[in-house]
């Protein structure tokens, strides 16, 4: 609990010296001009995200041993890398524009802080881990493994922030569901059915509890029960997804053509970008 209390809430807490600069940007003509086309810029921000996601999904599924198995990972990387680069460039450039038009909101947003931390992890993963591993069809040099440890640690930190911040932590549901979809795509037969049925049951019981049983009363105590139920089920579903993802990575109930390392890279590379996207979406909801 004390550890959670020392975690930062936003960039203003970490970099308070930037406040005058943020205020200057916020009152500038450039900020006003960009604000007038905010929606249009956002469209390109999203399209860039979806474009890079397409590349990452194809490469990562192949690293895991599913998807476009007729092609090697290096072939898929060659065919999709230009769209990855364009997508990353689009999100970064439009992101700067959005930030300029919205400086104060982002400076004080915990979701934006999580997004930026996970973005660092995502860039390291994509270019220093996934790219070299895919280009080498699964072989990994020492540099890629070291980069992966750093990226995983940074990503883990962003997830700790995500889970611990009230108002933001419901957004973890998106990462959980993305993980669930990956498990469904990468497991076979009984393993897949066991996973799917277990998750479906958990989600059903969760929704019944929070929308009927616990929704029966307007008493303040019901809010505590509601929040506790959300936490319990989020952790339960998270553990379920993680357990089956590990099973899949270790080659049980899924394809055995890839190594555990390749599968870990595949899973993490997609989910770290989902973390970036989920945190980005929750900038509006968590404020």
């Amino acid at each position, binding site marked *: 609990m004390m550890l959670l209390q020392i975690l930062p809430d936003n960039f203003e807490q970490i970099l308070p010296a930037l406040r005058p600069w943020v205020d200057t940007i916020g009152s500038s003509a450039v900020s006003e001009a960009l604000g007038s086309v905010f*929606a249009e810029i*956002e*469209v390109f921000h*999203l*399209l860039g*995200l*979806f*474009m890079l*996601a*397409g*590349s*990452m*999904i*194809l490469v990562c599924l192949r690293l895991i041993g599913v*998807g*476009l*198995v*007729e*092609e090697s990972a290096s*072939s898929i990387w060659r*065919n*999709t890398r230009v*769209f990855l680069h364009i997508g990353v460039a689009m999100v970064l450039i439009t992101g700067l524009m959005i930030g300029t038009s919205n400086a104060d909101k982002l400076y004080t947003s915990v979701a934006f802080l999580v997004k930026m931390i996970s973005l660092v992890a995502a860039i390291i993963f994509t270019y220093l881990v996934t790219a070299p591993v895919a280009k080498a069809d699964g072989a990994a040099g020492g540099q890629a493994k070291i980069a992966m440890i750093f990226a995983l640690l940074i990503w883990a930190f962003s997830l700790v922030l995500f889970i611990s911040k009230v108002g933001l932590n*419901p*957004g973890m*549901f*998106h990462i959980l*569901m*993305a993980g669930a*979809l990956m498990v469904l*795509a990468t497991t076979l037969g009984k393993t897949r059915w066991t996973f799917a049925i277990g998750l479906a049951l958990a989600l059903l019981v969760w929704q019944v509890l929070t*929308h009927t049983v616990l*929704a*029966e009363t*307007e008493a303040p105590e019901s809010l505590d029960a*509601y929040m506790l139920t*959300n936490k319990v089920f989020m952790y339960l579903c998270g553990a379920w997804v993680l357990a089956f993802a590990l099973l899949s990575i270790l080659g049980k109930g899924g394809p055995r053509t890839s190594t555990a390392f390749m599968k870990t890279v595949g899973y993490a590379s997609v989910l770290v*970008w*989902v973390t970036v*996207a*989920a945190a980005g*979406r*929750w900038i509006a*909801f968590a404020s």
Partner: protein
Amino acid sequence: MLHDFIVWVESQWGVGQTIFQRSFSDALEQSWNFWSLVEGTHVLTLMLFFGTIMMVDLRLMGLTFRQTPVSVLSERLLKLTVVAFLILVATGVLLFFAKAEDYYHNFWFRIKMILLVAAMINIYVFHKVVQKNQAEWDTAPSPPMKAKVSGLLSLAAWCVIIAAGRFVPYPDYHCGTPQPEWVNAFANCAESSKGAARLDGSIIGAEGY
């Protein structure tokens, strides 16, 4: 009649059966987290949907995976696209349900729906016409013009659908705000609770309509 049904769904259906006596629609719209999670799921699922369909469309246009047969790429990726599409439809229906009248009279929402139908027609035409002789060009690095056009139309349609979806919540072209007559007519604003506001300041319809 459709408008009346939508108003009933949004304001009446479920009243008395939910906490605070709200309708089901209002309960969803005013939920603590559920609506946000549905909306977030809708947007994030586009990573899977657009990411995969983009690759298939680019292959049809001969711009990537030129050494991979179109049938192989389609067979491997379109399963994922369909799963994503089903999630998009389910979440889309819930989102519409939460603010039915607003969306029904929303300019950009109507554009989105029209283009969605156009994209479906394009898919149908592709399967019925373009794909008929696919065996002849399946492995060609550069597919024939009809396949390229189909891929281009598909990609363009989905880009505009995404753009239109992003514009929906912004106040431009909303009923009740002064705008050109053709916008009011397209969104049928005169029938809505906010009315059709003209550029000269007059309003047709609105509450008490």
